[in-house]
């Protein structure tokens, strides 16, 4: 084989590798895609979602947001949801636009089993995304999840959720590619319409490797992408004057 041909082959392999690494899921809105590396939620790595207060026990807004976020991935392959407390209600997911009848749900008896199942799912070809409800995970577990995600380019989502009645546990794992803080936000129905508008979330991108943090109000939308940005939130740190804001 000539040198040029060898070089071509290596370039082709590299391109294939980079292509897989750079696979992203765009939000379809510049305001949020600009913050994310590659112009969208990177696939082949795992993301962390955290709720505040009671939400850290119930994980309702977090779960709904992640379901809406992962819904476009369901057309690429199977989606697995690993949970400790089996209170996920499939009709509710379906009303968020998530194909819940094809979701593989797993009830894990312990945190360790949940992580094992999550990692196993991410390693399996044909699974596009795996969502796990986990109380805490250390750096090693995070690294293992990352390696599992890279295997076939699956997206991992970890919802931090503690069991009812448990003390709050802190210590955030730093291994996640992105960390999102999710809270529900008051909905705005169309003027003159009674009742509730589409659900809204206050979404804070706290940490993003290769991108920059930000905060938005997002709303459930119809269409292939189940989310749309309603407004971008500015820096609210008025009481703590910080003239320079560092990204990263």
């Amino acid at each position, binding site marked *: 084989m000539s040198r040029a041909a060898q070089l071509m082959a290596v370039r082709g392999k590299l391109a294939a590798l980079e292509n*897989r690494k750079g696979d992203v899921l765009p939000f379809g809105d510049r305001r949020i895609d600009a913050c994310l590396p590659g112009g969208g939620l990177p696939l082949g790595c795992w993301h962390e979602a955290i709720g505040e207060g*009671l*939400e850290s026990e*119930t*994980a*309702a*807004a*977090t*779960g*709904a*947001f992640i*379901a809406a976020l992962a819904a476009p991935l369901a*057309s*690429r*392959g*199977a989606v697995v949801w690993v949970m400790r407390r089996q*209170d*996920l*209600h*499939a*009709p*509710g*997911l*379906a*009303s*968020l636009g998530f194909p*819940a*009848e*094809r*979701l*593989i*749900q*797993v*009830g*894990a*008896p312990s945190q360790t*089993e949940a992580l094992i*199942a999550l990692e*196993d*799912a991410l390693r*399996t*070809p*044909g*699974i*596009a995304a795996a969502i796990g409800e986990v109380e805490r995970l250390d750096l090693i577990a995070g690294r293992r999840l990352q390696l599992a995600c890279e295997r*076939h*380019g699956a997206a991992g989502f970890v919802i931090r959720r503690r069991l009812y009645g448990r003390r709050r546990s802190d210590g955030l794992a730093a291994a996640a590619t992105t960390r999102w803080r999710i*809270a*529900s*936000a*008051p*909905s705005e*129905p169309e003027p003159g319409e*009674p*009742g*509730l508008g589409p*659900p*809204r*979330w*206050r979404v804070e991108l706290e940490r993003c490797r290769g991108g920059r943090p930000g905060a938005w109000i997002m709303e459930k939308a119809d269409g292939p992408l189940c989310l749309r940005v309603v407004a971008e939130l500015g820096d609210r740190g008025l009481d703590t004057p910080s003239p320079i804001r560092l990204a990263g």
Partner: protein
Amino acid sequence: MRRLTAVDGRAAALGLFPGQKATDATALVPELIIAEADPAADAAALTKLVDWCARFSPAVAADPPDGLFLDITGVAHLWGGEAAMIDDLVRRLAAHGLTLRVAIAETPGAAWALAHFAPDRSRCENGQAATALAPLPVAALRLSQADAGQIGRLGLRSIGSVAALPRGELGRRFGSAVLKRLDQALGRAPEALTFRRPPNPWFARLAFAEPVSAPEDLATACNDIAAVLAARLEAEGQGARVFDLAFHRLDGRAERLSIALSLAGRDPAAVARLFQPLLERIDPGFGIEVVTLAARETETIGSRQACFSSSFGGGGPRSGGGAPNASPDRHRPPTSASPVLPPGGGERDDQDLSPFIDRLTNRLGAAVVWRAEAFASHAPERAAARRPPLTRPAETAWDAGRPRPVRLFRRPEPIEVIAPVPDDPPVLFRWRGQARRVRRAEGPERLAQEWWRRPFDDPAAVRDYYQVEDETGARFWLFRAGLYDAENPPRWWLHGLFG
């Protein structure tokens, strides 16, 4: 010396009896027809009869040389009662030219005694064994000849008189065998019957020259035996859903493991891999001499496994949903142009997922790995039915027009509510010690309990559901149990959370 082993009815009427010398019998009845006894053929015929009796009970045991035990617990009602069941059994066997005596009792021992010594077709109700057996001769206790003879010599003619003796003296005088038989007949001691199981043709066995006990040896044995059985299954085009592995120890105990597959398969490596994590539970004791593997729930799977490869994310076009017949397309090698994941396709190949599902179900149990399916029920807690993950989704879907929460509580939680009467959503409610002011609300959606599950006039059978949003935007699914009633204000509950 030749003796009679069995006589038919006419011979018995002439005074012949089993155990009689053959020469004496021919002297008494010169025209006697004597056939050679063939115990092996008798035993084989009895086994056949046991298999035939499977139509009456799943648990049938042979009682050589000429008896059968049928465990009819919970099956007699299929014939409309025990008497009808006996009639059917006798009628069918009589049609085959067999004569028999039947009895039903609560223990095998009592049934044996009644069948041999009481009038034919006698039945004894539960708890009546002692009275029913009391008048029967001592031989009805299935004692050895010596024991029965010794008891008879002491003038004890009936079981009742033996049972009346003090236990201690009885045991000292006649030994524990008599006590055991008496206890078994009266239901005071357990008796194990060896029920015959239908033979499983999918069975492999490996015996070792020297007993093994090292964990790596067990793993190797597991691989080897899986390959042996898989080769046979493959030759017949069969796959199985359940595999039972048994390690037979030197001391006679068997350590058993089993795994289940979500799709019938026979790939020996996959089967062995599922057994690997379970092998640590095996206690080899002094060593294991034989390993057996049985496959259950077999079905024809064709050549599906032939093109199964877990190393390709999406090798070539898929023929959809795990159809057993492999289309020619599937043998095409994956091209570089084919995407890693099939884009936008609703069809997935479940074949790729089955090893993953198998690992999960064998680790966690089949009950906690599921796929939700729409179930036509108004009760929210019954609207999502659990199905095995790899079954094909049904055509039914949930009604998108009805709001349903993402998290549904297994038990609704009580809340304190301030709500305008009679039919308005609450303006304020308190849940888990926290008051929440309702900003927006939707409802009510009235859901009635299904009348075939609960009486319709039960006031709590009607629930009015409201979807409310508090000031932070958190959404709750509340309901009022029952209709408005000024004297008994209905209670309010929180049933779920929206995102």
